[in-house]
Structures are given as C-alpha cells and as structure tokens.
C-alpha cells in the first residue's frame, strides 16, 4: 500500500512535466512559410561563380571532377576563343553537369577548385519528380549574368594561416602558379597589364 502511494506521487510528477510542456511554445517551424536560418557553412546545391567582368571563374581544369568521391561531376572542357573568351584561363567548361542524386555534399569540389569557381550554397530545398530534373547543367548552376559573388567562401573553416608564403587563390582570385599553371587557370580579377607585386617561385605563363 505504501508503495502504491509512492507510485501515485511519482505519476503526479510525470503529469506535471507534460503539463509544463503543454504551456511551452512549440518548436515546430511551418516550413514552406517559415524557414529556419541555415548555418552559414551549410553545404547545399552547387553554384558556379563569375568574375566582376562577367567571365566565368571555371577554367575546366577537371580538379573537382577528379576529387569528387561520388563521381557526381562531369566536365567537358573546351579551348577559349581568344577574341571572345568565356573564362579567364586557357580553357572553359563547355559541359558542366552535377548529378545531385550522386552528390554527397562533402564540399571537396569547392576545396579543390583553384579559382573558387564552384561552391556549395545554402539552397537545401532540393527535390524533383524525375532523375533528369536533378541532373544540374551548367546553365542551372551558373550565377546570373551581372552578379559576381564568392558565395560561402568567406565562412570556410579552417581558415588559411595569416603568414602563408603564397596567397590562397580561392579567396583572392589571385594565383601564384605554385600548384598549377597560371595560364591554365588565368589570373582572376587582377589587371593583366600590371606586373605581379611580388615575383613568385615559378611563373608558368608561357607554358
């Protein structure tokens, strides 16, 4: 009998907890109308970026395709027309397909990109009715003409050390040719007529 009364008191405690919860505000977000703030570093759908003058950052180097662990990226590169270039480098991507059904959103592609052309942005609302609709082509991924952003680049972690001997091209658009040829990836937003401030270890311009 004593146990029964002790148990009843315990049950009362349980009831008080649910009643306290009853008075709390729900944590539910009414999704399509009311969206949660996505963390700045969240990796959503890919975006292909442009330089300020409207040229594409992507130079068709295939590094992202090579590093992609899921094999989600397919690129066909093409030589740039000298008169009417598409990108700043020697080549540009004629075809740039990302299969969102294969992609695991690991972010290796944005890490590998020497020109900061591809980043994973905050668009996480990815759904489609067909497989084809989830195969993103270059037109779908490229940011609209006239806009030039660096996307989530500034939130990347870990940040490069301050006292780095060369600058990280992904963040500056400046490229020192230390890891691959500057002719291949172009010189970003730098004025082509101006000489580089500091001669770097190996200039590969004439390669």
């Amino acid at each position: 009998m004593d146990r029964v009364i002790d148990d009843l008191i315990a049950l009362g405690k349980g009831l008080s907890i649910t009643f306290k919860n009853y008075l709390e505000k729900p944590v539910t977000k009414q999704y399509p109308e009311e969206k949660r703030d996505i963390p700045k570093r969240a990796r959503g759908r890919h975006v292909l970026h442009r330089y300020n003058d409207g040229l594409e950052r992507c130079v068709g180097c295939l590094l992202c395709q090579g590093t992609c662990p899921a094999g989600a990226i397919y690129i066909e590169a093409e030589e740039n027309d000298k008169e009417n270039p598409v990108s700043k480098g020697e080549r540009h991507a004629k075809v740039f397909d990302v299969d969102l059904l294969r992609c695991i959103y690991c972010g290796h592609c944005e890490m590998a990109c020497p020109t900061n052309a591809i980043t994973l942005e905050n668009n996480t609302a990815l759904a489609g009715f067909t497989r084809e609709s989830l195969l993103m082509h270059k037109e779908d991924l490229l940011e609209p003409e006239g806009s030039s952003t660096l996307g989530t680049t500034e939130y990347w972690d870990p940040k490069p050390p301050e006292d780095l001997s060369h600058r990280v091209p992904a963040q500056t658009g400046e490229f020192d040719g230390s890891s691959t040829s500057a002719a291949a990836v172009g010189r970003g937003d730098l004025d082509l007529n101006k000489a580089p401030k500091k001669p770097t270890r190996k200039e590969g311009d004439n390669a």
Partner: protein
Amino acid sequence: MEPILALELIVRAVIVSALLQLAFAMMTRWERRAMAQMQWRIGPNRAGPAGIFQPFADGLKLLFKEQLMPDGARPFLYLVAPCISLVVALTSFSVIPTQLGNWPFPVEGRSLFQIADIDVGVLFLLGITSLSVYGIVLGGWASGNKYSLIGSIRASAQMVSYELALGTALLSPLLMVGSLSFREIAQFQSGGAWLVLSQPLAAIIFMISALAETNRAPFDLPEAEQELGAGFHTEYSGMRFSLFFMAEYIAMITVSSVLVTVFFGGPILLPFMSADAFLFSESFFWYAFKILICMFCFIWIRATFPRFRYDQLMNIGWRVLLPLGLMNLAITAVGVVFQMPWWGYTIAICGAVALLYVGGKLSRRQESNH
C-alpha cells in the same frame, strides 16, 4: 406509448447521436492538438483555421477507403462487431442527466439530451457498458487473425477485471445517496458537498478503472501497436474501423459523464451550491465544461504514461484497486449506518489510507531488519 411521444424520443435520440459523433470528431482533433502541444509540436493545422476541419477530412478519407474483409473472417460477426461497439457506446449515454432544471434545453422540464430518466440508471449503464466487450471480442475473433484474437482476449480479461473495481468504486457513493438514478445522485449533491469530497478514494479508483474500461492509454493493451499490429481492429479498414474508433471516444465521453455526475455534482456549477441558486447555477454548459476537463485529463494521461505490462495491469486491478474499493465500501457502509456527516467519510477514508501507508512502511522496515 403514443406515437407522437415515440417519434419525439426517436428525434431526440438522433440528435444526441449526431451530437455525440460531432463531439467525437472534435475530440480527435483536440487530442491530436493537445498531445502535440505537450510534445512541443503544433499538430494538425492545415485543414481550416487551427485544423478544425481535420476530422471531417479524416472522415471523408475513411468513407471512401476500400473496406477489406480477410478470407478467414466470419462475415456476419465481422460486420456486426463494430456496430455492437458503437450502439453500446451511444446507448449508454442516454441515461446521463446533462442538466437538472429548465435551462437551456428543456423537454418537459428535463434535459433534451437525457433520453431516458430511468430509476436504475447506474445499473443500466454498467450493464450496457459491459456489453461493449462483445464488440471487441467478436471483432477480434471474427477477423481470423491471431493478433486480433490476442488483442480481444486481452480486452476481455482487462474489462472483466476492472469492471469489479469500477463497480465497487461506484457502490460507495450509491450507498450514501441511496438511489440508482443519476438524476437523484446529481440532486443529492445540490446544496451539499460533492461526492468527490466525501469519497475521494472511490473517485480515484473510478478514474483509474474508467481508463481501463475505455481501453485508453496507459491501459490500451488490446491495441498495443508494438506487439499486436493494431490489436482487435487490425483487420478493419475504412468506415468499419472508424466505428470502433468512434465507440472508443464516445465511451470516453460517457465515462466522463458518469464521473462528473456521480462525483463532481453533475451540472451544478460549484460545490455547496444549490441547483436552483440562480438562473444558470446548473445548466448543460457547466456539465459540458466539466466533461471537457475530464477529456483533457484523458489526453494528458495518454501523453504522459507508457503502456502497462500485462502482469502489472492485472496486479493493479486485482491486488490494489479491488481491495481498496472493498475497504472503501466497508467504511462507507459503517458510515451510512451511523449517519455520519459528509466530512466523516472523508476523515475515515483518508485515515484508513494513511494507516495503510504507515503500516506498509513499518512492515517493510521490519522486513529489512531481519
């Protein structure tokens, strides 16, 4: 009986059934909303403002759903079982006095919703509610599914066990009132103490066994999802399932009505208030308000407690509730013989419970000393 009177009764019965089904619909939505709130969710809120049309959407869905009947089923019993459940649930409501006087729905000075004001209302209600086990047992057995059968066997054992506790819990207040008519029980409490004040133990036992009688959580073993699929209604789909569902909720309303009428003064606004103190001192609204509080408790308990194990269920019924009920009955009987005032019962019953508590603690301490 004159034909016009019979017609009037039929019309009233139809109105009450329709209102009960509306109450059932609103109850399902309220339950989902309240339970969601207790879990920090929102619950159904898409169909209409705050989801008030959700039950109608659900009802339409169930109406248009295909009604499957398993090959192994016994067709007649399979079809008749949900009807038994629903008819029993609707019938038992007919003796509840939803108001005592003329406001606001009088028919010949009685409540519109009380179809039959019979002298043995409590007995009638107990008899009819014990029929409800037939709906469940026949439904489970006739489905030809072993999980349904286990569910219905659990249901029958559970309902038979808890009916005893329910009966003893009701007997004590009935002894004090000296009548089996719900109207007289309600009138007994007009101007005096509500019976919950003089019979607190009986009220608690009644509440617990009422949960078990209506197969509500934490006593919902007959439909334990994790073990039995959906229990006795596993093989029912569409409208046939919804008849079972409806019966369960209407039984909840009926059981709350009994609790309110017997222990909480029926339609009277406050304890120690006379039924004719002022115009609305008793009315259908107070009764409905008390029912809503009871319903909230049903939801609240469901959202809080996990389901009992089967041996725990039987232990509570036979080794706790029934002896306590009998003790309560004995104390009340002595009190009635000596014509105690209402607080005499309270003191005697609380004293006995305290004695049991202290005695239990002492004997346990002695055991641990050995």
